[in-house]
């Protein structure tokens, strides 16, 4: 799994691995710098026709999942066999479709996430309330904002947020990809982002390559905003002094994009049943509650609050709240759905051609 997140690593090592060991499964966490590295390995194994692959469980979602599914990289139809799937809400759209790709039992839900923009309230006294307002703020304060260059995951989300905003809300953008809608809607997006360019950090002549680089700029006071799809990390980064103490989460009236992330088993895995045991364990009330603890990782649970057992409800009730990040109920208010996975590479490529390479 992606290894750049210290808390995520610690959660897996300290809680999930021992719990798996109790079930008789040896879980070995392999850190990758990018989830694509893991998918890539699976694709290579697939290309070579092996059935005893190295990778047994991948933390995945979105276009990585979509491409993998198209290439037959995932084992499918196994999630209904997991006893703990009963605690999730079967009609939850975030869990049945992953960026528009039907999940079809090819991956088990693990966490929910909400795209979050954070700002330094010491530098931005009257924060904007909408995305359009944020873009106006950027133009009034040149050099104090930027976003990671797609195909970085976070930067990619921001371009989709801007697309929703310039299209007059997400309801005006068809979630399933269609070329007509793409051609109709993207010119406004390109114009907006081009207009924004001179007001960005380094006059938009370049962009941070990753959300890590954006975070470094934010930590170093070069910009006043940062953004993340994993707001849990904000708590830790403020506590350890990496981020300014005045860091706050920007509340947008129209809401932000939310998604769920999953655990998938490669079709080349040599240990499918062991991987299923771990996926089931990861869905248990106890593990989900630990994972949701802001002191441990702070990832939002995928369980259905109504279906929790009394013990489970007590577990979640005891969780401390974060001083920086509001709870999921607040963050996910007016949550916007994610566009279908096919939109993502198309928008990324458009951005590369028109915004990054275009002068």
């Amino acid at each position: 799994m992606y290894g750049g997140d210290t808390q995520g690593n610690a959660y897996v090592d300290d809680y999930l691995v021992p719990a798996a060991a109790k079930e008789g499964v040896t879980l070995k966490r392999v850190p990758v710098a990018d989830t694509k590295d893991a998918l890539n390995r699976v694709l290579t194994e697939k290309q070579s026709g092996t059935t005893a692959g190295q990778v047994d469980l991948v933390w995945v979602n979105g276009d990585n999942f979509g491409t993998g599914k198209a290439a037959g990289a995932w084992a499918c139809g196994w999630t209904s066999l997991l006893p703990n799937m009963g605690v999730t809400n079967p009609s939850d759209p975030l869990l049945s479709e992953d960026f528009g790709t039907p999940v079809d039992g090819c991956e088990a839900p693990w966490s929910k996430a909400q795209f979050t923009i954070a700002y330094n309230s010491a530098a931005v006294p009257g924060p904007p309330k909408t995305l359009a307002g944020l873009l106006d703020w950027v133009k009034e304060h040149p050099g104090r904002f930027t976003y990671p260059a797609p195909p970085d995951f976070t930067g990619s989300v921001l371009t989709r947020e801007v697309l929703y905003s310039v299209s007059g809300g997400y309801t005006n953008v068809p979630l399933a990809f269609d070329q007509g809608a793409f051609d109709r809607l993207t010119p406004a997006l390109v114009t907006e982002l081009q207009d924004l360019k001179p007001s960005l950090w380094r006059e938009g002549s370049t962009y941070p390559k990753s959300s890590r680089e954006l975070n470094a700029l934010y930590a170093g006071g070069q910009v006043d905003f940062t953004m993340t799809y994993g707001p849990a990390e904000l708590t830790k980064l403020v506590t350890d002094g990496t981020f300014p103490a005045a860091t706050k989460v920007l509340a947008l009236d129209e809401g932000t994009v939310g998604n769920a992330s999953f655990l998938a088993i490669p079709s080349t895995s040599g240990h499918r049943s062991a991987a299923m045991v771990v996926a089931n364990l990861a869905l248990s009330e106890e593990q989900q509650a630990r994972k949701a603890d802001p002191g441990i990782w702070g990832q939002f649970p995928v369980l259905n609050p109504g279906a929790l057992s009394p013990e489970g409800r007590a577990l979640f009730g005891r969780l401390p709240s974060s001083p920086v990040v509001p709870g999921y109920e607040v963050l996910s208010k007016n949550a916007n759905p994610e566009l279908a996975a096919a939109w993502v590479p198309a928008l990324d490529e458009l951005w590369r051609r028109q915004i990054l390479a275009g002068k």
Partner: protein
Amino acid sequence: MAVTLPPGLSQQASRKGAAQNGLARSRAGGRILRTATAAALAVWFVLPLLPLGLWVFADRWSYPAPLPQHWGLDNVESALARGAATGFAGSLGLGLMVSAVATPLGVLAARSLAFHPSRWSAAVSALLFAPLALPAFVAVFGLNVLLVRLQVPSTAGVVLVLTAYALPYTTYVMRLAYAAHHIGFEEEACTLGATRGQVLFRVQLPLIAPALARAAFLAFLVGWTDYLVTLLVGGGSLVTVPLLVASAASGTGNDGIVAVLSLIALVPPLALLLLMGMTGRRHRGGRT
């Protein structure tokens, strides 16, 4: 020979007195110049390591503080929790394995090239140096499919590829060493009735020992410093320090952990170098 002596010797000789003066003066000036250059070079080589040294002990170092605000060992703890020990063992194992395979193969190849020139020699040396001209990522793009299809265990695959990349160095070092040592010694020992063990341990090894150590060290470094081959061919089964560094460096707020991992990466090669330096000196001292 390309080393041409300066022209106009006689002319300079006739002004010998003046030249002597000039020589003396230039030596004093030269010392200052040399000291300044040496200092500048020392700074050049050490400066990038400076932030690592500070970050290791920085429990809290918010921008724009020029020095850490809290010193401590939190980063060491986090790095250990992140699997620094496993990565260290993985790196060490990889370096040793590459060294263990590439050094003997390099010795054999170098012997063949040095003592048995044939019509194949040119082609053999060209081939053995070819890895230097092929960027590792290209070889890996191709080999990955091949290795997985042939079901080569991924660690073995990593060692295989890196050994090929270490062979130019081991072969080159040993080739130089053999160029300096005359095969006559071995042949003489043979004729004088030395057993094969005696030839190996009494004649060959002492003659090539320093070069052998250098070759083995270079091969170790190829394994120790690699990132991309371990990542792509290893497919995550082999966790090494460079992999941990890359993964930590891709997240935020990990600078201290990156620093700890980086310094960990510096320790074994330096220890090996020191060891080599010490035994080398003892050998030299013993002989003179």
